[in-house]
């Protein structure tokens, strides 16, 4: 079935069964490999993307349900890797294997879009669905605080918005 999707600001039409998880349309049809598969049952959060700015698990989101939404993946956080979350993740050297981190960053970006100065408890709650097998959690928490600070210090003229507004495709 023909489905029109808007991914990272770009309109694409795919021909897939409507109940195909959005995760697999992104990865295997659109070749956007940044969003990861870890469990398929919404336990690990590696598949987290934004639907209209809200963090969702794409392994449990049917592609048909995403048809009329703005879909943002990690590739769409910024065109040049300069989203405050991306900058903070590099500055604090968060990743070990890195496999969970796209999902972590998407959850963090969604949190910061709603809450520009989250507390530790806010972070715990927002990031609870993102597992890290390597155990980089302490750095993840530091990086969310750091991303908030980076975003707060940017002037509107040169900022990459924490809202992760759709940008031109990768």
């Amino acid at each position: 079935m023909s489905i029109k999707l808007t991914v990272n600001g770009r309109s694409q039409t795919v021909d897939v069964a409507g109940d195909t998880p959005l995760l697999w349309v992104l990865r295997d049809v659109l070749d956007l490999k940044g969003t990861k598969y870890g469990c398929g049952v919404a336990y690990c959060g590696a598949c987290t993307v934004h639907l209209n700015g809200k963090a969702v698990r794409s392994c449990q989101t049917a592609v048909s349900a995403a048809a009329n939404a703005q879909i943002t993946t990690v590739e769409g956080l910024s065109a040049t890797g300069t989203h405050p979350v991306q900058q903070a993740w590099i500055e604090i050297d968060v990743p070990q294997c890195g496999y969970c981190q796209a999902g972590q960053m998407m959850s963090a970006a969604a949190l910061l879009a709603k809450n520009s100065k989250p507390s530790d408890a806010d972070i715990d709650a927002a990031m609870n669905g993102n597992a890290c097998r390597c155990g980089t959690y302490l750095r993840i928490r530091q990086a969310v605080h750091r991303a908030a600070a980076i975003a707060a210090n940017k002037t509107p003229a040169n900022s990459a918005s924490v809202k992760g507004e759709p940008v031109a495709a990768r």
Partner: protein
Amino acid sequence: MENKKQGVNRRSFLLRASALAGGGMLVGLYVDPKKAMAQGRGGPPPPPFAPNAYVKIAPDGTVTLMAKNPEVGQGIKTMLPMLIAEELDVDWKDVKIEQTDFNDRVYTGQIAGGSTATPTNWLPMRQVGAGARAMLIAAAADTWKVPTSGLTTASGKVWDKSANKSIGYGELAAKAATMPVPDPKTLVLKDAKGYKIIGVSQGQRANPDIVTGKPIFGIDMMVPGMLYACYEKCGVFGGTVATHNIDELKTMPGIKGVYVVERPADLKPDINTVVLPGDPGLESGIAIVADTWWQAQTARKKLKVTWNEPPVRVAMNSASFAQQAEELSKKEPMRTLRKDGDPDAAITGAAKVVEGNYSYPFISHAPLEPQNCTAHFKDGKIEMWSNSQIPGNGRNLAAAACGVTPADVTLHMVRGGGGFGRRLTNDYCAEAAYISKLHGTPIKLLWSREDDMHHDYYRPGGYQYLKAGLDASGKIVGWRNHFVTYGDDDGQRLNTVSAGAMGPTEFPQPFIANYALHASAIHLGIRTGSLRAPSSNAFGFVIQSFIDELAHAAGKDPVEFRREILAATPKQPGYNAARMRGVLDLVAEKSGWGKKTYPKGTAQGVGFHFSHQGYFAEVAEVTVSAQNKVKVNKVWVAADVGMQIINPSAADNMVQGAVIDGMSELMYQEITVDTGRVQQNNYPQHQLVRLAQCPKDIEIHYLKSDNPPTGLGEPSLPPVLPAIANAIFTATGKRVRSLPFMKSGFSYA
């Protein structure tokens, strides 16, 4: 000052250099053919003097360093080039890094395992950098017609300070490649005081790719003409297809091929043994090939297959294992692995006797990226992309499955989303190559999370029946352990399952005059293997919890009791009591052990363990509620891994990760067996600690000692389980001897 305990046979490491097309230079290590053959089993002997590549310097001065080991999150792809760059005297920001292919004619030790990369490569990688630098200096000396003694290097240039001139490595490279190659023994390596790169925190080079979602993992590999595959196997190891309906799947959307696979009867190793082989390769199953993985998985849901299941394995289950262990513990042990003095007499005559029956389950590795491999079989050759932790074996198993030789295989090494020892076994490599041969296209084989959890090589479970005696002064006078593990006693020896053995000198044997280690084995029909700190990940919990029981029985402070054990003269070399005493004292100091007053329900606990050449002591502070909800408030780690932490940021990240990993193993993780098959399916049945449950702080202190650097990814894990368990005991009076703790009613707050 170089430490001669490194154990590197210097005669086998010689430098070689050659010119790069276009005027650059290529520097590497010549590897003794015998050593190369030992490393790459089954590979052809290398041609004499085969140059290999670690350093490429282009005429424009671009320096590219080759990273040879598998990168699975341990930071090795950044660390090995740091060692080269330091001695080469280039600025880290100017260095490019490339991953090598697997190539055992050219590189040795392309393995991610055993925490061995640091000790194995500490000297050779620095020698490569220093050797290249020496040749560049020689080239400059020749150009300027001056002696080399007056020349220095910095930031990718050779300098003649007295004449105030410099020349860049790029300009020198072509000539440098023709200079005599120095004997590594003659190279003067930098003093640590002069380090600009080693010992300075460097971010992981892959970070920019990771944060922008670049396709760098095995699961991300794309090859023109590639199709996707899934592979259904019997839940009982060694089962073969009896009946199936694969023709019904062939017409489903996107499906390009469905195949019944039977493992060839003559494929080595034999899988019909009582003790299963460690890495058997291709198993029987049904392969589904499709345009997308989801279409393959969708068709798979319609698959109706029955299996011929080996009856002996079908009869196995966890309840039976526990019952057999109980029965074995009451009988004479099958074997005595070690007996020093007369422990039974010492215990009988002791003032106080303490007994503890400990047990721990099978657990699963479950790295976040499920097993996968991309392979293309064409014209008798295989090209494959794998994140195996031991790619030589992946190559060999793929070749054997396809009936070709290892020389017919090209293996590109790609990033792994975690290893933890799972990717030391290579079934997915054999499967992907075989399916590609069947179908005739490149194939991306991806296991589902359920496949990954059902077809793991589990950390073996075990039972340890401990008994020790204390004299009137509270000193241990005798220690006896009946270790019930999995394996088979064939009448000659006790053959344990992979990763199921305990060594005869495992702590505290070196320090206890009357010591016995006995063993018995239960037959097992599921696969086992190494999982981060094999054996130690369970033994640390058992031994340090029991030592804590003895400390409390003796009425002594747990740290002081441990100091007393370490004060005994060891019976044989190998376990360095002074190094363990050093980290024990350091962690006691940093955690304020014995100096803090806690409210009821809050306490500290301690544990230490020596493994993978590293000495680690850890203290945990916990608060336990009346409902047995445990909050780990803080963990302190003291580590002695030698004279140098190479990349402090990566080291801290890994140690913190090991503490969190240990927390998950302690509380949540258990794999059970029924009708010969694993019952857990996915992470909800084998949980991971979450961000909210982590301690706010994990404080790490490295005690530098005059020993060559050793690894820390594994030795950092074992002490955290007993540290938390012992803290829980002190806080609540509850001694739990069985993992995971959730089965005793505990949880993390």
